[in-house]
């Protein structure tokens, strides 16, 4: 799969985080869209149908955990990654939709090329499901 064929949705309430990750992913050729809240992302996710959605855990409003559960019911084909700055172990609900510890990304990501690899893997795996 070409990066240009992979749509990524990024959910984070901090603009600077959306900016730096978007810049990197766009340089890699991905199609990136971002949302500042879970509520905003839920409005657009069905239209975007991203291959991969990366969500912050602590968001103002609905948190990342609940967001992913809801988003999954709208877009079950999307692979969800949780991006968090605190130690976190997956809730049962997130395990049920197939997430594993590998899908939790610890902030700050030191090297964004690792994120790129993770997105590619996830997108490839998502297509086969």
């Amino acid at each position: 799969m070409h990066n240009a064929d992979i749509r990524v949705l990024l959910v984070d309430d901090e603009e600077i985080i959306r900016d730096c990750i978007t810049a990197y992913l766009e340089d890699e050729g991905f199609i990136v869209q971002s949302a500042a809240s879970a509520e905003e992302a839920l409005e657009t996710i069905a239209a975007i149908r991203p291959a991969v959605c990366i969500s912050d855990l602590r968001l103002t409003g609905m948190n990342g955990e609940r967001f992913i559960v809801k988003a999954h019911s709208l877009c079950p084909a999307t692979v969800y990654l949780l991006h968090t700055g605190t130690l976190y172990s997956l809730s049962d609900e997130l395990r049920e939709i197939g997430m594993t510890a590998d899908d939790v990304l610890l902030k700050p990501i030191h090297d964004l090329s690792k994120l790129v690899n993770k997105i590619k893997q996830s997108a490839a795996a998502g297509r086969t499901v």
Partner: protein
Amino acid sequence: MSAKSAEIFFKSESRYRTLVENSCDIIFSLDTEGNFTFVSHAWKTVLGHDRGDAVGHNFRKFIHPEDIPRYETSIMTALQTNSAQEVTYRIHHADGSWRWHTSRGTPHVDENGVLTVIGMAYDVTERLRIEEIMTQTEKMIMISGMAAGMAHEINNPLGAILQHAQNIERRVSTGIPANLKAAAEVGVDLDLVRAYLQKRGIFDFIGHIRTAGMRASVIISNMLYFSRRSESGAEYIDLSALLDRVLELAGTDYHLKKKYDFRRIDLQRDYAADLPLVPLVVAELEQVLLNIIHNAAQAMAGAAMRREPRITLRTRLSEGMVLIEIEDNGPGMDEATRLRIFEPFFSTKEVGVSTGLGLSVAYAIVTKGHRGAIEVQSRPGEGSCFTVKLPLQGKA
């Protein structure tokens, strides 16, 4: 008992004597020079020394050198102000250890008109140990709340620093078509731009931003252990094998090699043969033990050692806990240092090299993550011994 009947009761010298000799506390008297003129039977039961070793000898013979001035002051004050004085100090036990005692002494003029100090002393070692653990626990509770909040606030700015530094590196690279296009639009040659940046050291600066950011990030992620809750992830592990692996890791850690040669240290293993498997989180316990061994090796390398540096790893079972002891024969530490080593950011080492998080992280992992305990004993000039205690039962 009224004052009158008490007088009658105590009139008999033998009653006094029986009381004094049966007291669990040490009852003693000292002359104005500080020589014992009497010690009760408890002297032998509490401290293991013969009474004859004390009488006629000076208190200074038994009291920890660091505590002698305090003891002297208390006696002087009692005599000068004619009042009872309390003092807490370390006193030598016949088994070679130091025990903490509190004593209360009062000036007394005996029937021959001789001035003495009479008093009572009792062991407070266990009480102080428990107080120390409680203080430690309180400190940790305060810090853990702060750490989680701080980590959350700092990780995003840190992410921006690290990731934008990476973005800058990439946006001046020739590998990305959009860069070449933008350069052409403004009429510059990207290779020349890169040559300029190279010449002025800009690439190095960006590299330094990333290194510094990563260092800060490691500190923050270490602090997350303070707010860690006990959770699963524990497996039943063969402790002897884990200790062997940790020693191997310690020997190959390149950070260590830079500072000293781990191979010069005499490593002694004294593992209990009958240990059951112990429930623990492997990566975390490895970190704990590595931190302790790392410290021991650093301490021995930093001190002028007149003996061969040695680290002894010991394991044994005690009261449903498995004990891991890591003992070194390095410089040890004084009491003031010992009391602070589990505090985050407490370090006696070079700033910028050590953050002072090693033992505080170890403390959090052992006490919060594994419901165990970690303690230290140390004698300046002789060495230190860390004890990690882990429960054999998994978490309740």
